[in-house]
């Protein structure tokens, strides 16, 4: 699964630690999501989407597809 968590976080000038704190997870979890080593659970994905005020499918998308961002 691909994602744009790093870009969304950087746009807000948040560190991985800041984002981890807002999501109540470890910094390593945020890092593993950003580096696409770990796909978050649906509740965590929804929490991330809510935090960035975007839809889940705008942040996460299958590796073979492109993000919905900008398509609609």
């Amino acid at each position, binding site marked *: 699964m691909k994602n744009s968590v790093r870009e969304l976080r950087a746009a807000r000038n948040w560190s991985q630690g800041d984002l981890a704190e807002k999501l109540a997870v*470890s910094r390593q979890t945020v890092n593993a999501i950003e580096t696409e080593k770990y796909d978050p659970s649906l509740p965590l994905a929804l929490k991330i989407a809510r935090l960035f005020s975007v839809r889940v499918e705008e942040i996460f998308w299958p590796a073979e597809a492109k993000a919905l961002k900008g398509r609609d």
Partner: protein
Amino acid sequence: MRTIKPLRCFDTRVIVAALGVAAWLIASAWLSRLFPPASTARVLLALGQVGAVAALVLVIRRSITRLDELAQHIHYQALAVVAAVMVTAIAGWAFLERAGMPRIDWSVYAAPAFTLAWAVGVMWIARRYE
């Protein structure tokens, strides 16, 4: 911010529970020698040992559910790998016993071997996410 520490599930509560279970297993094994084989007392003591191990599993499971999402994922992956390895080892050793190798009492060694392999598995799998 929370720092991921997958081995945090082996907290004080789990260690105390594990020591309590170990003490009960030793005491009940010693007690059971006082009764004849297949007696009701021996069977009850054996059931008590099963119950103690099951209770320890529940305590550990509760401890894991308190961990960070990724840490839980690491634990479940490690448990799956270790379960497969243990089944292979126990079944494999049974074949070797029939071929003349010394007998291993898995009721004594299975739990410590499983716990050790699990801890190593957690540390190994956690490296993937660093």
